């Protein structure tokens, strides 16, 4: 190693300050190789494995979350659809019920009206009958009264049959006048 090494080699068993030593290079290369493979095996491999596992786990949970979200969306849409359908149905039912109630009430009202009309008619008929009966009674009474009055007036006995006929004619004429 030239000028540099000579003095130091002689001094003691130290290598020179700036030296190239075969043994050191050899051992250093071996040590470096050991260190590289040791680090690869003890540090990089386990840590990278763990990182890869974590990445996989994160990916998986992300995928799962997306899936769950999609499912939730689907369920939500389904529920919304069902809700709309139910609303429609209820509205339909309500409408139907309203219509039926309307019909029913119309029916009832019509029936009531009809009944009322019938009652009225009946009443009217009864009234008419009463009137007629009263009129005939009145007629009989009036005729008797007239006969009596006539007897008194005429003072003579007329044939009661002629009498009745005369009176009837009179009443009829009166009735026609009314």
């Amino acid at each position, binding site marked *: 190693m030239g000028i*540099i090494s000579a*003095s130091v080699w002689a001094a003691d068993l130290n290598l*020179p300050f700036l030296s190239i030593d075969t043994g050191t290079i050899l051992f250093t290369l071996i040590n470096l190789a050991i260190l590289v493979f040791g680090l690869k095996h003890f540090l990089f491999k386990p840590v990278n494995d763990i990182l890869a596992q974590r990445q996989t786990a994160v990916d998986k949970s992300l995928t799962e979350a997306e899936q769950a979200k999609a499912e939730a969306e689907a369920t939500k849409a389904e529920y919304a659809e069902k809700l709309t359908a139910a609303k429609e149905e209820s509205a339909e039912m309500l409408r139907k019920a309203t219509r039926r109630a309307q019909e029913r009430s119309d029916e009832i009202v019509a029936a009531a009206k009809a009944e009322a009309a019938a009652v009225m008619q009946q009443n009217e008929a009864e009234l008419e009958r009463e009137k007629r009966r009263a009129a005939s009674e009145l007629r009989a009474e009036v005729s008797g009264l007239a006969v009596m009055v006539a007897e008194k007036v005429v003072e003579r006995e007329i044939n009661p049959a002629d009498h009745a006929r005369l009176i009837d004619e009179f009443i009829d004429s009166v009735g026609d006048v009314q």
Partner: protein
Amino acid sequence: MDMGEAIILAGSAIGAGLAMIAGIGPGIGEGYAVGKACEAIARQPEASGAVTRTMFVGCAVAESTGIYGLIIALLLIFLKPFT
């Protein structure tokens, strides 16, 4: 100590001092580089990591001439290779 050895020692010491003149170059160069790096970081603070890294590598390369001078100076002073 005979005269020859004394002259060699004196020459080594002077040589070491002269060798350290090599420190001027890296000093100026690195100062310039760091100044430019500061400007770059001021202009683009988000790139400070890359700028700093590049600056250090550049400084290291620039510094090697100074280091060679230092090695020569150390050899001359402590190992006295010519005695």
